[in-house]
């Protein structure tokens, strides 16, 4: 472990026993029969597997990943709450963990008394707490309530007091688990200030969060955990992008399997002279998708089959939001294509070069009908897709644009 490394993790593995409620805990019988036998292997779930990490002094590491990817377990191991099953973990210096704020608060005691106890729990001496008491109270902003029992506090106040004690412990290493999301706006600004202050004073921070904005703001380095292994690690932007793509892909799979199940929701009518056999949504590369990045290409393909010869045939599509707002609709007749000589069976493609829409879920209607509007086959909600975007702009449509600022 080099001089400058504060957190070092090598080959870390952690597994939990799979617990079924019916046999949640051992019984006296099992204790008598096999007091020290090892539990069988199939009873375990691996939560972390072969994780290697190094964090240098003064660096901020963010850990991201989907639910159940092992982020919190990693943090608890760093904090020393869980013991690793494999590998080595070393953390130098005083650790303060913001995993649970106000752990051990007693509801019947006043805020002041709880600060005293909580401070002792976090490893401060009585004198240190007395010295910092005023500062802790001022920082929490609870001067008026500090002598009221904690049970009368709102959850926000509770967290503020807990946070105030935890950050005033003056740690060398700060472990933060998704606690910044609680509390009001003013409080989260305070948290941000505090974290920035920690960073400036050269403390090492390890942050677990789903808030990518916070990751970009604070982290020097990001680790993406996926299923207990490090999927990517490095410069924030790159890792976040990789993570987002993976999430979009997973979402895509789920969405498509749901589409298949949601068959019933469709409304379909028409005389059936021409049938739409299949509808596909493709990305620029031609593979089927249900989630698209805003501004990327979208291709709609419809397979049709003519049951009766006719040349009076128009294909159309419409895109709705989930709230049934029509975003866009068009058809081959409106666009004066006047196709004739339709084959018995075929495919119609509509290529949208740029899907300039804001983030959200959308539904697609497809139709084959006559020029006078008589429907052969009209399918509402034939398909659905989601648009993902890194911007949080609002509305439906995002015209290609840029901002400029000029003096004078």
């Amino acid at each position, binding site marked *: 472990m080099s001089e400058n490394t504060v957190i070092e993790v090598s080959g870390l593995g952690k597994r*939990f026993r799979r617990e079924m409620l019916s046999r949640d805990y051992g019984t*006296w019988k099992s*204790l008598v029969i096999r007091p020290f036998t090892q539990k069988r292997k199939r009873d375990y779930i691996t939560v972390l597997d072969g994780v290697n990490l190094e964090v240098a002094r003064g660096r901020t590491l963010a850990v991201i990943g989907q639910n159940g990817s092992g982020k919190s377990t990693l943090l608890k191991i760093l904090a020393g*709450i869980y013991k690793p099953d494999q590998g080595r973990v070393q953390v130098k210096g005083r650790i303060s963990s913001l995993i649970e704020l106000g*752990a051990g608060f007693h509801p019947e*005691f006043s805020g002041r008394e709880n600060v*005293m*106890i909580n401070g002792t729990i976090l490893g401060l001496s*009585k004198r240190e707490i007395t010295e910092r008491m005023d500062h802790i109270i001022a920082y929490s902003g609870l001067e008026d309530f500090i002598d009221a*029992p904690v049970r009368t506090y709102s959850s926000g106040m509770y967290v503020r007091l807990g946070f105030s004690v935890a950050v005033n412990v003056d740690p060398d290493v700060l472990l933060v688990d998704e606690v910044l999301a609680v509390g009001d706006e003013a409080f989260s600004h305070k948290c941000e200030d505090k974290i920035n202050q920690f960073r400036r004073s050269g403390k090492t921070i390890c942050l677990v969060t789903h808030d990518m904005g916070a990751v970009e703001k604070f982290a020097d380095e990001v680790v993406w955990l996926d299923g207990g292994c490090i999927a990517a690690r490095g410069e924030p932007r790159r890792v976040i992008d990789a993570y987002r793509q993976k999430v979009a892909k997973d979402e895509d799979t789920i969405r498509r399997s749901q589409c298949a199940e949601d068959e019933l929701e469709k409304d379909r009518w028409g005389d059936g002279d021409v049938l739409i056999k299949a509808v596909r949504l493709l990305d620029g590369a031609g593979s089927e998708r249900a989630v698209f990045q805003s501004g990327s290409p979208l291709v709609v393909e419809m397979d049709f089959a003519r049951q009766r010869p006719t040349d009076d045939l128009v294909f159309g599509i419409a895109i709705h939001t989930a709230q049934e707002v029509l975003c866009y609709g068009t058809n081959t007749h409106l666009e004066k294509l006047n196709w004739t000589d339709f084959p018995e069976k075929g495919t119609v493609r509509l290529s949208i070069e740029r899907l300039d829409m804001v983030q959200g879920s959308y539904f697609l209607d497809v139709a084959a009908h006559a020029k006078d509007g008589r429907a052969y086959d009209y399918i509402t909600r034939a398909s659905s897709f989601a648009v993902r975007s890194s911007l949080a702009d609002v509305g439906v449509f995002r015209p290609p644009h840029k901002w400029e600022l000029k003096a004078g």
Partner: protein
Amino acid sequence: MGQQFVQHLVELKRHWALVSALAGRELKGRYRGSLLGFLWTFLNPLLLLLVYALVFSVYFRVQMANYAVFMFTGLLPWIFFSQALMEGTGSITDAGSLVTKVLFPQQVLPAVKVTANLVNYILSLPILLGFLWLSGVSLKWTLLAFPLVAAAHVLFTFALTLLLCAFNVFMRDTRHILANLLTLWFFLTPILYPLSQVPEKYRMLVYLNPAAVFTLAYQDLFFWGRWPRWELLGVLVLLSLVLLFVAVTVFEHYKEYFAEKI
């Protein structure tokens, strides 16, 4: 292993401030919000004494001089012992986020329960002494043996609590079994009856009961005004040390799994 044992005790001493802070909170918190507050610490044993005095001296009419106060002499240490055991056994499992969410010296938790109940016990002693005096039992120099008897008593209680609280994490039945065993144990211990009521041939069995050893010692020094039987106390201390060694070993071996099991 011996090193682990020493280290455990050193750690406990290092965290003594935390133990006393939590025990203080425990004692204060017990009667928080009640009208009489801390007065209950004295009222509880007093009322208990009255109940037992009523039942055994008025209704039951036990033929023994100063029976009520005799019984009270053995009852107070028993209350300390059984309360500390009951609360201490659940101390890890009930601690919740202290165990699962923060790094916390867990051996502090059973120690807190034992300490809080010990303080409670000591605070109830003036009531015992007052009643002894009122009943005309003459207090003798033998009272000086109290710290030694109490030390053996606390040691045994602490060792057993430490062992059971670790057990209870893995087998939640422990607490319920204990509750029932304590009732049996209470009647097997000569608290409600003097040792002389036990048939001669069973006396040896009484001496095998650690709770009987400290109960008899307390009765000796408070009620009978004679020195306790040192050899029995010596055996109790030895037994307690062995038990403590086992308890520390078990606790240290399993403590890293506590957070996962709660």
